[in-house]
């Protein structure tokens, strides 16, 4: 076998010798990939909201209007982005644990059975910030590149 060519056997030999290194590299790639999948949004609330952190499930139920009040009794006013928004898709996937299409179907059920109506939608993330800053009890989400002014960040538990 000439120098410089690689046979399957030599590849296997290389892998055996450097198994630990391969494992570390694989884990590194996975972790980098995972990091890229990390949520790239902030949950924000009106400054008057007492909590600094909320359970993810509570936030999901607030946006699905299964709960309507904070623990202290204040009314929750969730606000959504349009169904075409990438931030909404990520939020829906990470927090509501369902796709935007599934959420849309959920609201059709609620609307036409007379149970409830969906949160208002605004056109852009800057409008989410504006709405949340001006509406007591408001709860919204925006991408991490949005300029935040007059709102508080909510950590998800």
């Amino acid at each position, binding site marked *: 076998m000439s120098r410089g060519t690689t046979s399957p056997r030599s590849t296997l030999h290389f892998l055996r010798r450097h198994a630990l290194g391969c494992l570390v590299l694989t884990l590194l790639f996975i972790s980098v990939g995972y990091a890229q999948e990390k949520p790239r949004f902030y949950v924000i609330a009106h400054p008057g909201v007492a909590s600094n952190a909320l359970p993810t499930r509570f936030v999901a139920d607030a946006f699905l209007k*299964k709960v309507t009040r904070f623990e202290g009794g204040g009314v929750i006013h969730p606000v959504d982005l349009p169904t075409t928004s990438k931030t909404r898709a990520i939020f829906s996937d990470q927090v509501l644990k*369902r796709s935007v299409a599934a959420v849309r179907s959920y609201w059709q059920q609620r609307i036409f059975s*007379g149970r409830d109506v969906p949160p208002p939608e605004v056109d852009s993330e800057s409008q989410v910030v504006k709405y949340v800053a001006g509406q007591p009890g408001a709860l919204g989400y925006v991408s991490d590149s949005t300029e935040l002014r007059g709102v508080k960040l909510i950590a998800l538990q």
Partner: protein
Amino acid sequence: MISLGWRPSLAADRSARGWLRRGQRRASLLFALSVLLVAFPAGAETTEEVPVSNRMADWMPEVHGFVSQGFMKSTDNNYLAQSERGSFEFNEVGLNFTKTLTDRFRVGMQLFMRDLGPVGNYKPQFDWFYLDYRFFDWLGIRAGRTKIPFGLYNEYNDIDAARVAVLLPQAVYPTLNRDYLLAQTGGEIYGRTPHSAIGEFEYRAYGGTIYMDASSNPAIHNLDLPYVLGGRLMWEAPVDGLRIGGTYQTLKLNADLELPPEALQQYAAAGLIPADATNPFPVQLPIWLWVASLEYSWRDLTLAAEYSQWKAKLTTEYPTLDQSVKNERMYIMASYQVVPWLATGLYYSLFFPDMADRTGVDKQQHDVAVSLRFDPIEHWLIKLEGHFMSGTAYLDPQLNNGVQPADLTRNWLYFLLKTTAYF
């Protein structure tokens, strides 16, 4: 600018959708007038900087609606309509108005009409209307005509946009019984427990009556439904997307039956009734229904299974005529959102009209259904569905030229095409 889709905007809206909103306002004028006295003070509280049009928007109700047209075709047997030759008698129109008057108080109503073979015939009716006051998340009350929360999906039985299948599993959600099972007029208490490590419980209890129209059946007089009572308990487990629950419902029917003269003679000859018995026959029909439900949703996949039994006991002034029947209903269903514009569904549904006798083609109904749902644009959908049916227990002799289900074709195929626009 806040854009609420089809709902009143919080800021002035000069977009192309403005004309639609003006149309909604005209259409909802009647409803708006009914809530005006209560709602207008809320609008009047707005500041001077807010344009007048916005104050109007504050007290206008939300408006939603849908229009559906379907087509059905079967290889044998007529089901729901004259399906063997192909039928377009499958359409629905609905328009609803909802107004949140305060943080706790809402009102709403939906007008609905449909045509499904021999039923509906475009007769408009109030599908639901209610006053809803939510004291807390764990306690709310509703009064009016409200949808019956029977099982997982009864409330959504007529909402095409809310599911993948054209027909929900008919064993548990029979479309022909829509007028009797969909809504009740009375009151409801509802709520859900706060978050905890064991998940949440959602509960609903209701009582009232059900409007039933038997005017098209000359053999039934003085039909009355003195009560319907029921409740549903649903456990939302700590596992995301898992719901387990049960529903129980009881109701009672009273009516006067007019038996054909030949039937009277036969019963008298058999000694079941006195020889001088005459029409009408007052009957009472208490009915008990329960369903156990399981649903699991993970991302774009939803799995559901339900098992149900319905029992009815016919009582007359002649005990020899009394009888009771218990039937069994179940299904298992999966649906998957492949991409935002395409979803698929599959279910197997099984129905035994008489648990004491499951033999015979008319004593069972197996139904395997495959569905495709396309959403080409946000407010429009198209569905295709195919059913393989084995058994004839779903079938009605009146739609099949008087042929009894026992004499109809055992295995048959049934296809549906339906399109719905909604907003």
